[in-house]
């Protein structure tokens, strides 16, 4: 099972990077989103995959040893929320930049590096 997820992680990372290597600012953000999906999935997979054994105690499931590892889930949840905050800010930043510079080409941003 994990190998399939590994392929998906690979796809997410490489597609994310590919988008970021384009010159479009918009694609930059899209790529960033894909990469954070990739990272989340990586943690999720690395923590071990279990089907239909959610880490919730109820009357039905009380056998503690069988449920899935909850820790990676907590990590992923934290990471998702953080990346949401970051993405929101990044979007606003890109929006502002786009309006101020009137371009969405990243290669137009070279002025700060060179004199």
């Amino acid at each position, binding site marked *: *099972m*994990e*190998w*399939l997820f*590994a*392929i*998906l*992680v*690979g796809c997410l*990372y*490489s*597609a994310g*990077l*590919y*988008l*970021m*290597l*384009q*010159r479009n600012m918009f*694609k*930059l953000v899209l790529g960033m*989103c894909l990469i954070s999906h990739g990272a*989340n999935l*990586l943690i*999720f997979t*690395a923590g*071990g*995959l*279990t*089907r239909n054994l*959610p*880490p*919730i*105690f109820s009357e039905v499931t009380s056998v*503690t*040893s069988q*449920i*899935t590892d*909850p*820790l990676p889930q*907590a990590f*992923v*949840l*934290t990471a998702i*929320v*953080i990346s*949401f905050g*970051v993405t*929101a*800010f990044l*979007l*606003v*930043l890109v929006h*502002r930049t786009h*309006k101020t510079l009137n371009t*969405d080409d*990243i*290669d137009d941003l070279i002025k700060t*590096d*060179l004199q």
Partner: protein
Amino acid sequence: MFILLIVFLPFLSVILLSGVFSLNKILRAIILSIPPFLALFISMSYLNKQLPIFQLNWLPTLGIDLYFESSYFQLLFGIFILTIGIFIHFFATIYLQKDPSLNSWFFWFFTFMGSMLGIVFSANLFLLFLFWELTSLASFFLIGHYHEQEEARKSAWEALLITGGGGLCLLTGFIMLFILTGTVNLPELQDKFNSSESSFFLNTAVSLILLGIMTKSAQYPFHFWLPDAMTAPAPASAYLHSATMVKAGVFLTFRLSPIFSNIYLWHALLITCGGFTFFWGAFCSLREDSIKKALAYTTVSTLGLLTCLIGIGTPEMIYSAMLLLFAHAIYKAGLFLFAGSIEFSTHHKYLSKIKGLWLKQPLFLITALLLILSLAGVPLTFSFYAKEELIHTLFQLDSINALIVTLLIVIGNILLVGFATRFLIIPLYKNENREETFQFNLSSYLLITIPLLFSLIGIVIPLSPYLTDIFHKLSPELLPNITENNYTEITTKHNQTYLLLLPSFITWVAGISFGLYFIFKNNISKEPHLTALATRIYQQSINQLLIQSDRITRFFQNGKLRSYLQTFTLAVLLVSFISVIAESEIIQSNILSHILHTEHKTTTYDFILISIIIAGIFGVIFAKTKLTAVICLGLVGYGMAVIFLIFSAPDLAMTQFIIETLTVSLFVFVFYHLPEQHLHRRRFTKYQNLIICAIFGVVMGFLTLSASSIQTHLSISSYFTTKSLHEAHGGNIVNVILVDFRGFDTLGEITVLAIAGIGTYALLRYQRLKKHE
């Protein structure tokens, strides 16, 4: 304690400076000179006694101690520095009277005086380095005093870079010594140092130290900063470039020569470099029209001679080098001050411009004559006395060394006499072109008295037995291995001056004719080409440094985010490849067995789900419009949510679902009102990028696989499942982890969210505020 006082009293003047700034000029000068006077008084009174050492731990871990010691020679040198300094201080008060930034000049002047004394008295090499760099710094400011002029800035920078760079070499050398012996305290170093084992390490250390010395003492090929530094005000030149700073290197050579006496490289380098510099400096001085520059070249020449003599290293040589050091300090300071007073009175810097000066002002002529006689080493002057000593000792040696050195000295002296001739004769000419009236006022006459005083001192010393005695006492201290008998022998020989008259006579005749030749040849415009070569190498290396650094920086920092990302990816790939290759066997066995023995079977639904997500990914990449791309992104996100749902993470699924919705709507919001630009405006297909991305994906996938297949320890999470319900009172373990077990992470996480919110607010509001304005 007193020794500390001597060093730090000049710094007291620096502090006093701010207090007395508003006072009358003369009063200020007097107050400022009190601390150096005190220091002078202390050192004079201890000249014949032993001044106790001062030792205080400062940075013992790194070997830096506040450790001062004084020998007779050091004290005498200190007295010279103080005396000359006080005179120059008075000279400068008059010379720079109209200068608005006089205060800053004095600040650096006294700083310099103190740090020079520091060099003289420190017995810890790192401490010495501290003062060494401080002199470089102070000289930077003194040389660049007229910083409105481009030339002054340039030469100050040049001096700082060369002496500062040399200083770094010196420091490295010291550090190597420190590592070799465990101490940099000179007295202990002498005991511990075992120079018989000459190793590459030691030789490197010695050459680095020599590099430092040579840059500071203006030895060829680093000598050019000294003539260039003549943009400094004359009193600064007089102080720094005759009596003190350039002597710091020579002084250090004196101090180190007992330690390195067995090292061949030390002697070889000093002799070659010094010898050549001696000759070359004198030669350059013959062709230089600017008075101060010409004097600077003669200084270079003398420094070369001193270095060379110390390089030979026999006690007699060192003794005569010491004498010469003092003699030179006196007459050269006088000469520079003299050049300063000429400049002050006539506003001319060039020898050819002051034609007729001697005739107009006999006082100048007398001063010039007396000083120049000292320079040329004519009998009755102190420098004659010193050189006489030198030639004596040379006669006693019978090696090939001595012959070469004698020859060198004779040639050098001829050149110096040539310069002296030029210096005396050119201003004797009548001023043909225009009847220039040099303006002389009280200040000019006051100024000329100080160089006159120096010239007189230079003549008085050899005449007064009391004063000569002071210099004789130098001798036994440095010649420990010479018995009392030998010593008297050396001293008695001083009277056989007749022996010297013949070579001296030849020197003078040749020198004068040389000087006359150069006067008539009048070919002085061009810089001597070996000096020009050194200057050009310096200039070129600075230029190249600027050009190449610019090129390198442009190469790396090319402004394209794309290439930065590529570099980043390559770095990730590189480290992953290295790690994987280093441990390939373990990975192979683990991953293969894991895939083969996997417990979960893959169902068709999984395939379908994952194909949908991958389709979504491709959709994002190939979408033609932003809207399509965003919808595809949403597809990927919802797919992720479904994955989380299937693989027992309902909380994740729910959060992912809502957040994906929010993200997509944010995307739509943000881009709704931006001008629609086609996503494929520039078709971009670089195979290079494709390959990098593909490899990156493969590597990340592989890492995922390896992370889930290589498991060395059990996870810590069973703790959470056991404790969740009863100790943390919660059935939803993920939530319990989030708010309790690892609630601190969540605290950070909501902080991130809060910041993102405020950031958005600030960014948008600020823009609106600006628009309103």
